[in-house]
């Protein structure tokens, strides 16, 4: 029967670590794909923005608003970005509960029989030996996987660079206060 130490050595730890690593790599790939897909949809989802609103106050005090023609901008351009997550930590916890029991049982039964008659006699001895040896082994094992995810900055080249060219005339300089006389 294998010893407890051998049982522990037989735990397929390298196999478990490999499977965990492959599982994390697969999950990471799925997360990244989802984020890239989100980026594509954000870039493909325009919303209409009213870029300017002019408020006019007439001489009689009435106020009117004039809205500029709306322009379409994708959600990505207004600052809605896909979030990227990364597995930052992973650990395996293996717990084993090994119980081995050995029991041995020997039964010896001796019987003696003798007969005496007329000028003859007989005798017999009967010995029954039974030998039982029992091995019992219980192995219980549990394994737990912990993974930790954290948000990471998106790849810098995934977003288009936005350059704003503002052709509006510069605001007039503030009027200096009239000189004191």
């Amino acid at each position, binding site marked *: 029967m294998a010893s407890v130490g051998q049982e522990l050595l037989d735990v397929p730890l390298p196999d478990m670590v490999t499977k965990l690593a492959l599982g994390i790599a697969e999950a990471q790939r799925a997360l990244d794909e*989802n*984020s890239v897909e*989100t980026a594509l949809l954000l870039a493909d989802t325009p919303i209409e923005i009213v*870029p300017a609103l002019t*408020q006019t106050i007439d001489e009689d005090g009435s106020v009117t608003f004039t809205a500029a023609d709306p322009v379409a*901008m994708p959600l990505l351009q207004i*600052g*809605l970005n896909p*979030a990227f997550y990364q597995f930052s930590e992973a650990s395996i916890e293996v717990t084993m509960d090994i119980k081995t029991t050995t029991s041995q049982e020997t039964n010896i039964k001796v019987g003696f029989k003798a007969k005496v008659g007329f000028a003859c006699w007989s005798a017999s001895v009967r010995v029954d030996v039974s030998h039982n040896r029992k091995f019992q082994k219980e192995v219980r094992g549990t394994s737990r996987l912990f993974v930790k995810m954290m948000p990471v900055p998106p790849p810098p080249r995934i977003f288009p660079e936005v350059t704003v060219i503002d052709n509006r005339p510069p605001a007039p300089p503030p009027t200096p206060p009239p000189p004191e006389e």
Partner: protein
Amino acid sequence: MLPIEGRSLFFVVGRGEAPDAIVRAAGGVVVAHVPDARRVLAVLPLAAGTGLRGHPGLELAGPVSIDAERFARFMELIGLDDARPP
């Protein structure tokens, strides 16, 4: 005020119809429809949001964040910032 502890912002796109009911069933809250009812921004528990991947009623459920710098630049562009009053 919406509690955001353990939650994240998701861009959820319904497959053919509005995903509001699916978001609510996952414990989330729809915060905006952009620009139509089929596409929403929703605040969801992170695990629930990632669990919506592959939902038959959804085209996409992806985590998003707001780029504060770009959003501020956009606000400046449309004149809603404090730097340049209209």
